[in-house]
């Protein structure tokens, strides 16, 4: 992984930059001791590490603005950070950068049930937002599996999804407004508690911009009333193709489940060994969950089971009560943990058209054999967002590189069949150098033009998203 050379003149000015930051914030909010900056050297993509020059933990939008203004004047790159759970290296620092973390900004600013929104500081974790409105039976819909740890700021920057996004959409569909601090310290309010922009949809392009357009300090989020109940059904098939066809038929029938999860044999075996959820041993499993009252749930499940039966399932288990529902989800929820027990793994995140599912699974099997590395699949089948897990041994020299090469081949396959490189984890540094497989240079140019406008100095979250060769001219011009 190539990263730009640290700027020697910035490194030489470290003491002055740190002193200015301490003066503007407070001494405790600025971390510069190398023993302590190590805590920020990576996110959940631990294969890449680099400690920053310093880290700042402001407590308010004003402090964020002050810190950014200083870094802008000093020409210091800034890496925004939420909880550091990115799987794409989205918050990987450079040696000459200042990490700006929002972890101290965790207040609820306003809750409004009649108008169905909440306004928060973005350091709040995803789950704590739902926690704040549960008293009134409301919830915040996007639910990444990392929701206990990840921050709203990271969710907005990555446009994160979750298991329930088939029905409720991803972050961008549930975000109403943000307070954005630009690199030069300018504070802009975009959107609000009302719907839709009056002019250009700036909110839409800020969401998913991976911390490269500004630091998001506050957010207005749509909240929804909780459904009366939810229940899954587990369906096993003797071929991936059949499971894929069943997914397509359920969707066509006009039933909109909240989730359709897919697991293939390698994944089923690993989960079963780990969690003992009592899964049937077969080639492919679907977990389909629906919501509503008891009667509505029963009605939808009857229809889903009727569709499934046309595909001759080898196993079919409806959850009769909450306990059985929990057991159906148990294996799926422990999938990543189970994989971690038996191997090191790399988690991919490409999306494909649902119709290409059988072809992609078959060709992925071929690639897996060719590279000699196992691949297990567990993913959100309703929207085609795959999470192939490549199993490797980090202690065997050369296996990480082999694993990365296989990962790149699988992602290129996703693009080839009409899909994309990443469905919810983001590009970060991980998929940066694959971008030209999906987009032509002029397509990337149109995206980088957005950054030119928001961050003309190109100081925010350096070396992410765009291949370094594509962004070089702009970075040089900005210096």
């Amino acid at each position, binding site marked *: 992984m190539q990263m730009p050379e640290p700027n020697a003149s910035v490194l030489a000015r470290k003491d002055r930059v740190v002193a200015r930051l301490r003066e503007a914030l407070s001494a405790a909010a600025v971390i510069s001791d190398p023993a302590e900056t190590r805590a920020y050297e990576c996110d959940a993509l631990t294969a890449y590490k680099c400690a920053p020059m310093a880290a700042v933990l402001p407590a308010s939008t004003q402090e964020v603005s002050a810190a950014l203004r200083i870094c802008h004047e000093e020409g210091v790159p800034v890496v925004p950070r939420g909880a550091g759970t990115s799987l794409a290296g989205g918050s990987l620092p450079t040696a000459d950068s200042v990490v700006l973390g929002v972890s101290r900004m965790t207040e609820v600013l306003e809750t409004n049930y009649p108008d169905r929104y909440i306004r928060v500081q973005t350091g709040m974790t995803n789950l704590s937002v739902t926690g704040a409105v549960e008293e009134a039976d409301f919830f915040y819909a996007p639910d990444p599996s990392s929701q206990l740890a990840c921050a709203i700021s990271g969710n907005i920057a990555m446009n994160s999804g979750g298991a329930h996004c088939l029905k409720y959409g991803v972050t961008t569909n549930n975000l109403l407004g943000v307070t954005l601090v630009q690199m030069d310290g300018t504070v802009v309010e975009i959107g609000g508690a009302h719907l839709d922009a009056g*002019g*250009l949809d700036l909110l839409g392009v800020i969401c998913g911009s991976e911390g490269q357009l500004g630091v998001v300090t506050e957010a207005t989020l749509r909240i929804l009333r909780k459904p009366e109940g939810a229940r899954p059904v587990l369906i096993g098939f003797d071929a991936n193709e059949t499971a894929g066809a069943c997914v397509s038929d359920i969707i*066509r029938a006009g039933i909109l489940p909240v989730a359709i999860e897919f697991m293939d044999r390698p994944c089923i075996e690993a989960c079963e060994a780990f969690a003992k959820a009592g899964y049937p041993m077969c080639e492919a499993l679907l977990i389909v969950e629906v919501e509503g009252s008891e009667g509505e749930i029963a009605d939808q499940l009857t229809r889903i089971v009727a569709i499934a039966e046309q595909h001759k399932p080898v196993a079919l288990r409806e959850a009769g009560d909450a306990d059985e529902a929990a057991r159906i989800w148990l294996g799926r929820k422990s999938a990543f943990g189970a994989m971690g027990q038996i191997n090191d793994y790399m988690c991919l995140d490409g999306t494909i058209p649902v119709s290409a599912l059988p072809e992609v699974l078959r060709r992925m099997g071929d690639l897996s054999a060719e590279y000699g590395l196992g691949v297990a699949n567990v993913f959100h089948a309703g929207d085609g967002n795959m999470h192939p897990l490549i199993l490797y041994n980090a202690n065997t020299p050369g296996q990480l590189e082999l694993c990365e090469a296989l990962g790149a081949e699988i992602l290129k396959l996703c693009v080839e069949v009409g899909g994309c490189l990443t469905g919810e984890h*983001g*590009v970060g540094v991980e998929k940066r150098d694959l971008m030209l497989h999906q987009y032509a240079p002029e397509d990337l140019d149109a995206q980088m033009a957005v950054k030119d406008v928001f961050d003309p100095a190109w100081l925010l979250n350096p070396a992410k998203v765009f291949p370094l060769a594509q962004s070089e001219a702009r970075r040089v011009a900005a210096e």
Partner: protein
Amino acid sequence: MKPGNEAELAELVAGAAGPLRIMGGGTRDVGRPVDGTALSTAGLTGATLYEPGALTLVVRAGTPLAEVETVLAGEGQRLAFEPMDHRALLGTTGAPTIGGAVAANVSGPRRVQAGACRDFLLGVRFVDGQGRVIKNGGRVMKNVTGYDVVKLMAGSWGTLGVLTELSFKVLAIPETEMTLVARGLSDADGVALLSTALGSPFDVTGAAHLGQGVVEGGARTQVRIEGLAASVAYRRDRLTALLPGVEAVEGADSAALWREVRDVDPFAGQPGSVWKVSVRPSDGPVLCARLGTLVTGAIYDWGGGLVWLRGPEAGDGGASRIRAEVATLGGHATLVRGPEALRRQVPVFPPETAGVATLTAGLQAKYDPRGVLNPGLMG
């Protein structure tokens, strides 16, 4: 000029010597009038991909909306964002295009539950102001590969690029729809009823209130539910218990109630300017109370958050007072209908704060450095 394909369109834009007025079906006489050579997208038509089992449709931008809806209905599907037909309101003719609907980010009553046009847009191809063909997004439902320029293009009114191809997430047409109607409520009580309905677990897909004097029979408050027949019946019972005095309207009669709101029908053929205001739902009635006799009718959609106001045609059309009140509440107001002279006199689109205006101008300068695409339309 009416290019027959994307490459021709790109060549025409690249070679443009002066301003271009981008046209879809030309059914809207929109925004601040643009003086320029007309460039029509009507030659770019037809679906290029439709996979009902993946809920995906890819279609060229000049395709008439009616054609898109017919193709989808053939498979029991639809555009869930419910684009409006504004011909009656604006007194125009022609066939609205899918590109025009996206360029305006047009969303109807279902926006409160399903989302806006931009939420269903998965990918775009467009020609920028220098004649370059650009793509962003794709045809899959989850995609965070690079910046979301798709969202930026929706609602950019042709000022950042000429859309040539669009891909959408589509949804099944539900088995049943039903509307629960209450009569004679004040604006505040009507919107409070909508808020109760939207705050229930019963998956309301439309929530509107037509104020006193807008339709015959007094004020009308309406709540829509859609889905499987048994589920709709269940939710009707639960909502009827929750919302005092409502009565159920079914099938085609229910659909007609929502077409009326979607197309702002009650203001068609009536004199006056028409404003589209977006505020917090509970602020809708507050706004109208403050405006008093300046407005002669109000239709609240989106649970109260979208207010269609009929204002004066004379003077500034109500612009300064409406915008001053909206500014104190938070939100924005757009002049959707007004004589050309009025649209030259007052800003049609909501004035932006300094920070946002700088970003908007910067983006327009990047995407259209020569300023040939609908110049001044949004300004």
